[in-house]
């Protein structure tokens, strides 16, 4: 890969990072806290691309002007040597072509956040929390999947029993067709995302599509089951109503990051 192509790939990679960081696209892949670093690195990559083009252009102009001085001659020698086409450099530049792949994936495909496929292959990652936040005394409770599951399992539903609860998550079905409401919890990037699952019972909608986001209204029930993958605890939620909702801005649960 020659300098111009390298500059182009650097520029496009930087632009893709900036694009992902400035829209909500990056939230599909990494935690929200990474945004400043993403923007910064995108800027650095674009600067590197521009610097490459600039020095290339200036190098040529310099050579055009006066006959090469000592310094220039040496610099040019080094370049000719490194571009000479012996094995090492070829190998090196071929590897660089791979950088085009994530670029295409990010710009053209922009894969969605992890969904039911990953969720059902991995065991629930529910853990006992430090403590519980105080909840409003009246009205329906809006809880995250992780919050509901940990209160139901480790607090035995004490703070939520008898209340109307609203939980948002996506649908996942196991081999037997049993429906779960899932949210992937994330610490750094999607590679370490782990599901937390709630099993649904009660008035479940007749047709459930995996990966569709639902806001489920229901009540606490003491019933529990075990995750077949890792024997982790999965609480039930008795559904009274379910409405489809659009995918939230941040599809992951990041409550463990704080």
């Amino acid at each position, binding site marked *: 890969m020659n300098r111009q192509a390298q500059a182009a790939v650097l520029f496009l990679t930087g632009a893709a990072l900036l694009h992902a960081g400035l829209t909500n696209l990056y939230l599909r892949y990494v935690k929200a806290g990474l945004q400043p*670093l993403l923007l910064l*690195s995108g800027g650095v990559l674009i600067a590197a691309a521009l610097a490459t083009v600039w020095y290339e252009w200036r190098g040529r102009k310099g*050579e055009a002007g006066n006959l090469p001085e000592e310094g220039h*001659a040496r610099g040019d020698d*080094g370049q000719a040597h*490194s571009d000479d086409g012996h094995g090492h450099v070829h190998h090196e530049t071929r590897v660089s072509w791979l950088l085009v792949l994530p670029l295409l*994936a990010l710009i053209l495909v922009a894969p969605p956040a992890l969904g039911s496929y990953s969720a059902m292959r991995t065991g629930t990652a529910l853990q006992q929390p430090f403590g519980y936040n105080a909840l409003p005394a009246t009205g329906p409770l809006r809880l995250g999947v992780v919050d509901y599951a940990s209160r139901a399992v480790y607090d035995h539903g004490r703070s939520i029993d008898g209340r109307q609860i609203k939980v948002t998550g996506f649908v996942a079905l196991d081999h037997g067709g049993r429906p779960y409401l899932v949210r992937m919890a994330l610490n750094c990037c999607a590679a*370490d995302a*782990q599901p937390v699952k709630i099993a649904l019972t009660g008035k479940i909608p007749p047709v459930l599509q995996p990966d569709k986001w639902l806001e489920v209204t229901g009540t606490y029930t003491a019933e529990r089951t075990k995750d077949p993958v890792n024997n982790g605890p999965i609480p039930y939620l008795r559904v009274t109503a379910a409405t489809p909702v659009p995918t939230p801005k941040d599809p992951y649960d990041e409550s463990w990051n704080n």
Partner: protein
Amino acid sequence: MAITKPAPIGADSHEPPGHDPELQEVDQKHEQHEKQKHEQHEQQKHEQHEKHEQAAGGPRESKSPLVLTMLLLLLVLLQGPIRGALSAPVMQSWMTVFVAVLVQALPFLVLGVLLSAAIAVFVPASFFARALPKRPALAVPVAGMAGAVLPGCECASVPVAGALVRRGVTPAAALAFLLSAPAINPIVLTATAVAFPRNPEMVLARFVASLLVACVMGWLWQRLGRTDWLRLPERPQYEGQSRGAAFWGSVRHDVMHAGGFLVIGAMAAATLKAVAPASWLRTAADNPLVAILALAVLAVLLSICSEADAFVAASLTQFSLTAKLAFLVVGPMIDLKLFAMQAGTFGRGFALRFAPATFALAIAGAVLTGAVLL
């Protein structure tokens, strides 16, 4: 020069070498002609600069911007069918993890590359000679402890360690830094403390075990390592260039180079995450020794950022604390992504020897520390 190569190769493929004197003569003439032409190039450098580059880099290399443009155009035109093929859940999950690993790692790689370019261009070699103890045996633990100040994950430490070796730091010390930096910096240790709220001793165990393994690897390299294993890829000479040109040249080179290897590692990690079944872990947890090995292998395969691996370890509830410690010690030192990047930065021969030794020592260090502290 490269431009003369096609002719002899063509002749070889048609006729046994040396059989046709006429053809040889033609070849020689051709070669001479090319040489003359090349000398002309040298004289009229400016005008012929592009042709010169073509001759030097080979015709295929110089077409790369064209290839890139064609590739992009083709992919834009074929968006529909490609999207269809990629919509299977396995492929989607693969792509998401692949992109996620890169989007997460690139900022840290850029950070490491900037640091390594700064070391290469602005820090004089004499600084490291003064900062590190003269005796390599002492320089190793000092460099290992210095790893605590690089706040980032493992992607940042590879280019920095490469720059240190180029700057004349003894390889044993640079390798100790490479291994310890991703595991013992404050961000990673804080994350470990948050992930194991009921086992604060885990933080100490991780720090001790990681530092221990890094130092032992450094000393081991000093005793057994041979310089010819360590082959730093040639890079453009920076003497005679302005500092700005050298700095950005180093940044460009490192991002393109290490970035390519990072892509290989991300592909491997995404494949495992999307394809390998998680249920085999449950059977492995029953036997304490198998459990330690299983989590060490898992750490290599998953290639998770060292800032997040503590949370994954904490969720592997059916495993012993020592097995989790092995996961936390092995992961930042060697995984698929790191192996690819080390092979790119230090040479394949180095990576093939260094990685298994690191893996074995990291497990031993974790078990030892686990037996004492956990």
